[in-house]
């Protein structure tokens, strides 16, 4: 027996190399989604031509720029929510927060005559405050994040509506507004590509890198994987939680602003559907509840898949009404598929 420190076995010559990065990339959820995306592209390049006619062209640059543009608003919502879910939290209110930001912008500019940049600042600040409120209630009152943000999602539209009173005092469901500067910003293009969409893409990359490669990002995974263990190695989960909720809300605010400038109108419930798409995309992309796994790459591919499907079916002449239920059904199928897949390896992904 004697000393058992150190060893001279063959394994000491192994440098315990990490799995080849390509192999690792293939194991993430993003990869099957990429494949799915490719398959969709192929399918939609052919099918509409047959079904609708030769003018129904899917495979051209414009389609993809459109897809990118369409997913930019959702993308902002997804980034915020995705980071939260990875760390073990959830935000069901960011759709409402985004809508609020849009309303503040619209009312500020058209009804109150603020300069556009003032309205933008106020909108972003307001979003941040809501995020802060969420964080306070969740961390100090220790209520489940799910319920708190749900309650917030019910409460915020009321605030939006309050802001959107017109001159006579009636509450407008939707506000139209025009502001050339804002529209110029929202719709600005570099070539075929919408600038704002490119910015969102850049944000995905930035946040994705932060999540995957920085100390901070790693901490999020640890928190989400085992909060007690994270605390016992000195991670300040409260501070991180505050940051994430505020971050999510601010990103949602930006989403609302972007949406408002593009569409020319704002309303209290405008972004709620997008919020759910965002969460769906994140889950499809491998970010699971209970935290600790997945990444923004997967989430991004999730949105891409959902939007491509929407675009493709639109070009195929299908009713636009079917896209929303389709992504809901897609999520359910993906979850079921995941269940049958992983229950074999006994690592249950119970969302």
């Amino acid at each position, binding site marked *: 027996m004697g000393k058992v420190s150190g060893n001279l076995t063959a394994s000491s010559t192994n440098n315990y190399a990490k799995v080849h990065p390509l192999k690792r990339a293939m194991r993430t959820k993003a990869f099957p989604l990429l494949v799915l995306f490719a398959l969709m592209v192929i399918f939609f390049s052919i099918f509409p031509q047959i079904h609708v006619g030769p003018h129904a062209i899917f495979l051209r640059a414009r389609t993809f720029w459109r897809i990118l543009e369409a997913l930019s608003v959702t993308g902002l919502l997804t980034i915020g929510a995705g980071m939260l879910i990875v760390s073990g939290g959830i935000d069901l209110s960011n759709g409402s927060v985004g809508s609020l930001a849009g309303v503040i912008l619209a009312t500020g500019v058209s009804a109150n005559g603020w300069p556009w940049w003032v309205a933008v600042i106020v909108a972003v600040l307001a979003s941040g405050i809501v995020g802060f409120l969420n964080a306070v209630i969740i961390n100090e009152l220790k209520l489940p994040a799910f319920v*708190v943000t749900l309650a917030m999602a019910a409460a915020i539209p*009321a605030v939006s509506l309050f802001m959107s009173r017109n001159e006579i005092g009636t509450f407008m469901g939707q506000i139209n507004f025009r502001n050339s500067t804002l529209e110029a910003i929202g719709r600005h293009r570099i070539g075929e590509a919408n600038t704002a969409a490119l910015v969102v893409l850049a944000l995905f990359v930035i946040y994705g890198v932060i999540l995957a490669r920085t100390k901070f990002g790693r901490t999020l995974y640890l928190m989400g994987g085992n909060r007690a263990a994270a605390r016992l190695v000195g991670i300040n989960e409260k501070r991180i939680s505050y940051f994430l909720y505020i971050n999510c809300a601010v990103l949602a605010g930006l989403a609302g602003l972007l949406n408002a400038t593009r569409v020319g109108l704002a309303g209290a419930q405008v972004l709620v559907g997008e919020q759910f798409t965002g969460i769906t995309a994140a889950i499809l992309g491998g970010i699971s509840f209970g935290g600790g796994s997945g990444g923004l790459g997967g989430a991004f591919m999730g949105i891409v898949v959902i939007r491509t499907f929407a675009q493709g079916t639109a070009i195929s002449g299908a009713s636009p009404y079917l896209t929303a239920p389709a992504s809901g059904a897609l999520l359910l199928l993906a979850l079921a598929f995941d269940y049958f897949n992983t229950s074999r390896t006994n690592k249950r992904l119970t969302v």
Partner: protein
Amino acid sequence: MNVSRSRMFLRSKVFQLLVLSAIVFAITTLISPGWVNPHNIRRLMDNMVITGIFLTAVAPLLMSGVIDFSGSSMAVLSQVIFVMLFEATGLPWGLVALIAIICGGVIGLINAFFVVKLNLMAFIVTMAMATVLAGIASWLTRNVITPLNATSFTDLSTIWVFDIIPVFFIFFAILIIIYSWILMKTTFGRSVIMCGGNQTAARLAGLNPKRIRTILFINSGMIASIAGILHSAQTRSANASGGLGMNMPHMTAFIASILGGVSFFGGSGALAGAFMGVVLIELLAYALLVMGLPAAVTGLLNGILLLVAMTIDQVAMSMRMKKLGLKSHGSGGGGAVMPGTAKT
């Protein structure tokens, strides 16, 4: 500790909510004295019917430890199916209603498959289902309001007992009484609460939480259908993007349940308290309307009510766990506790 009967405990929740409702009533009357007229009371009761019926869908599931968020969309879809089928086939409305209700049951079964069999998180599954159902409803109607010409049915919504109480309200009241009775007095009803209260103990006692929750999901689907159909009588139409979807009565029922003492974590509560919760919330909503505030302000108040009710519930829950000798749920703060995922 002196004996205090469980019924007394519940009655006190009912009593508290009654008092709150009375206060709301009083304040509203002070501000707008003219509001207490037959028209308003009838409208108020009409609203209570729709929200209240959802109690019998949402509350039992909640008691057994599961959340269902698909109710309102199910109601919308049922409404659409009901009206479109009726207008298209001319079959007697009773038969068409039955078909729509059966559809609701089938959807409930699908929910049960994902949540109970696959053990996925109830909140995500039912939310996804909600988008699917709402989307199908929109697709079927192309978002066009479809009128319902079944006067023998729709006229029922205009019959008022004592000139004030809508017939539907009587129906709703009877429904609540029946469900209340089932939950309180039958072995099945008691097993519902037992499953939510302590899954392990329930299984040790020979109960089958999976089977019970599946039944409750089917029930939830059917009840949602009934709500949708009744609503179509009130509005004489089917509207995929209308008030039923917007107001999310199932959420109101959910909040009312928690206000009324049904624990978010399952295992306690009764319909009586939830009923008073509905009364309070609907009264509040109507009062705001009377005072000229937009409907969405109720969202604000509901949100606040939900938070308050949850805090009380959470405190009660940690007290319960302490008494059981267990450390309190560590994952309550900051984490995404999903109580709708009662492990089956």
